[in-house]
C-alpha cells in the first residue's frame, strides 16, 4: 500500500474533496462512514480517476465501543496507515439541538466519537514515531452563537482536544493539524441565507491535503477566515451577547 490515508466520515462533500486530493497525490485510501452504498460508489470512482487502491468499511462515530476493532481492521487491510483525516460532522437542526436529547447526538457525533477514534489512532501513530492526524472542526467552534452553539461547542471542544493531542504527539513526530473551514458549499449550507465567500469542497479538500507540506498547526480554510474569526473573537462579550448571529 502506498502511504494509506484513512478518511473518517468519508461521504460528506468536504471529505470527498479531501479524498480526491490525497488520491491525486498517489495515496491509497480507506473510506469510512455509515453509508456503505455511498462508500462503494466513491471508492470505485476514486480508483478509476486516480488509479490508487481504495477500500471502504462501516464506521459509526457514535458507536465508540466498535472503534478499537474498526481501526485494527483498517490497519490489517491497508498494512498500516500514514495518516488519518477526521471529517465526521453532524449539524442536524441547530434549533432542535437546544433540546438535550438532540444536542447529545450532536456532541456524540462531533466530539465524543471523534475523541474515541482519534485516541485509538494516536496510540497507533505514537510508537511508530510518524504519521499525521487532520481533524476538521469549524469556525463555529471559535465563538458560541445562538444559531448553532451546541454544534459550535462540540467543534470547539474538538479543537481543544486536537490542541492537547498535538502537544502530546509532538515529541514522537506525529503531526496533528486542526482545520477550520469557513462557509463551504455543502449539503450543510445549501440554501442557507446570509452566506458569503463560499468555497467549493474540492478547493477545501485540495487545501487540506496541502497542509501537510506546510508547518501551520491550526489552519483556517480559506485563509482569510483567520482574520474574520480574529475580529469575531475580539468583539467584547457585553456587545456580542446583544448581537443576532
Amino acid at each position, binding site marked *: 500500500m502506498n502511504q494509506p490515508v484513512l478518511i473518517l466520515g468519508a*461521504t*460528506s*462533500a468536504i471529505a470527498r474533496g479531501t479524498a480526491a486530493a490525497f488520491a491525486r497525490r498517489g495515496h491509497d485510501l480507506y473510506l469510512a462512514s455509515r*453509508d456503505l*452504498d*455511498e462508500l462503494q*460508489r*466513491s471508492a*470505485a*470512482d476514486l480508483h*478509476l*480517476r486516480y488509479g490508487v487502491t481504495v477500500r471502504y468499511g462501516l464506521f459509526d462515530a457514535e458507536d465508540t465501543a466498535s472503534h478499537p476493532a474498526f481501526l485494527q481492521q483498517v490497519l490489517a487491510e491497508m498494512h498500516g496507515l500514514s495518516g488519518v483525516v477526521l471529517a465526521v460532522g453532524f449539524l442536524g437542526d441547530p434549533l432542535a439541538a437546544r433540546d438535550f436529547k438532540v444536542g447529545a447526538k450532536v456532541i456524540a457525533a462531533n466530539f465524543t466519537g471523534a475523541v474515541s477514534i482519534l485516541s485509538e489512532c494516536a496510540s497507533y501513530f505514537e510508537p511508530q514515531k510518524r504519521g499525521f492526524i487532520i481533524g476538521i472542526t469549524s469556525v463555529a467552534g471559535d465563538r458560541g452563537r445562538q444559531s448553532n452553539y451546541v454544534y459550535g461547542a462540540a467543534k470547539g471542544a474538538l479543537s481543544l482536544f486536537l490542541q492537547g493531542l498535538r502537544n502530546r504527539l509532538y515529541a514522537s513526530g506525529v503531526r496533528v493539524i486542526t482545520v477550520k473551514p469557513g462557509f463551504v458549499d*455543502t*449539503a450543510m449550507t*445549501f*440554501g*442557507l441565507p446570509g452566506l458569503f465567500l463560499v468555497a467549493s469542497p474540492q478547493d477545501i479538500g485540495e487545501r487540506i491535503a496541502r497542509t501537510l507540506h506546510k508547518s501551520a498547526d491550526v489552519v483556517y480554510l480559506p485563509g482569510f477566515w483567520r482574520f474574520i474569526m480574529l475580529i469575531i473573537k475580539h468583539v467584547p462579550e457585553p456587545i456580542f451577547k446583544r448581537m443576532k448571529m
Partner: protein
Amino acid sequence: MPTLITSISGWGRYPLQSCELERPERYADLNSDAPSLIVRGQGRSYGDASLNENGRVLLTERVNRMLELDTEQGILRAEAGVTLAEILAVIVLQGWFLPVTPGTKFVSLGGCVAADVHGKNHHHEGSFCDHVLDLAMILADGTRSHCSATENAELFWATVGGMGLTGIIGEVTLKLIPIQTTRMKVRYHAATNLEQMFKLLQDPTLDDRYSVAWIDSLATGKNLGRGVAMFGHHATLAELGNSKPHSRQLKHDQPARKRTLPFDFPAFALNPLSIGAFNAWYYHREGGKQEPFLSGYDAYFYPLDAIGQWNRLYGKRGFVQYQCVIPEQGAYAGMATLLHELSASRRPSFLAVLKRFGAQGRGMLSFPTAGYTLALDLPIRDSGLFALLDRLDSIVLQHGGRVYLAKDARLSAESFRSMYPRYEEWLKIKSIIDPHNRFSSSLSRRLHIGLNSGRAA
C-alpha cells in the same frame, strides 16, 4: 432536504426563471418530494429544458461518480451527473473514446441521454443512445428500475431524447470505442456555395468517421452557403508515422491556457460588419488548408470549451441557438431557403454549422433524422428575432423537418406536434409511468407536453 430559490437559465441565458433548486449528494437521495420536478445536470441545454419556473429543479452535479470501467470490452457505468470531460480524463489514457460526443465536453452524462445528443459521426454511428447499454432510473412513484433496448424497451425509447420527462436518470452504462492514438487526422475542403457544400458532404471518397461543415451565414447571392467542410477520424498509429511505443500515443492535449470571458460583451459587439469580416477571414484561412493535418482531440471536438463562458459573447440578453433538421429529399431546397431568409434578415449567426445525419434512431422524441441539420447562434437584440425564427420554423415544417428541443427556447406547441409525429406514442408511455405529470419543465409546459397541457403545475 434544503432548497435554494434562485433565478437560473440555460446556456443561452434566455429565458431566466426563478426555480427552487435541490442538490442531493448521495445516490439514495436522488429524488425529491416536490410535486413538479425536472433534473438539471450541467445546465448546458440552451433554452428552458432544464428550467422549472416556480417549481423544483433537481441538480445532479454532486452525484457524479464513475462506477465501473471494463477495459477489455470498453464499457463504462457511471452516475448521470458525471461530465463527459471527467469521463474523457479517465478513458482516453486507456485507449477508449466516447462513441458519440456533442460539441462541448462540459455536459452531464444524463443530459446526453435525455437529449439523445449527436456528434459529427451521426451518419455512421447514430446518436448517443445507440451506444447506451442500460439506464438505472428513479420513476415518479419512487421505484427504481432499469431499462435498455431489450429490457423495459418502451421506457428506454421514451427516455432517450425524452428531455427528462419520464423520470430521473440515475446511472448510465455506455459502450465506448477503441482508439489507437489521441490525435485526429483532419482534412478540410472549401465550398464556394451551398450546392458545392452538399456535394462535398455527400462525396463517399471524401467521407470520414466525422464530418461537419462551417457555413458563412452572411454570404449571399452566388456565395450563399459557402463554407468549409471538415472531415476527420481518430488517427491510427501508422498515420502518426513514427515509432513511439503505443502508450505514448495516448495522452491528453497540452492544456492550453484556459481563457474565460470576464464580462458580458456589449450587444453591438457582434454585428453584420464584425461577423462578416470574421467569416471572410475564417473562410480563407481554414478553406486554404488543402493538406490533411493532425489535431489534438480537444481542439478538434471542443474548440469552444477553450473559452470559459463563451456565452457571454452574446451580451446580457443572451442568445437563441436554432438547430433544425430537414429530411434528405427536401434538404437542399430547405437549407437554401433558410440561409437566404437568414442572410436577408441581416441577423448574422456567429456560428453556423451544417451536418449530415444518418438514419433516424428509435428514441420517440429524438431529434436526428436522415437528412441535414443546421445550427445557428442568434443573439437576442430585439423581438424581431423571434419573428424571424417563426419564419424559419415554417420553412422547416414545409420541408418535413424539426427543431432540436435541447437548443430550443421558443418553439410553439403546434409546431412541436407537427415536428414530432411520435409524440402521441410517447405520451401513452408517459401517462402510464408518470400519470400525475410529476416530471415537468418550463419547456414541457411551453410545448404542452405531458398531461396538464398548457397549465403550470
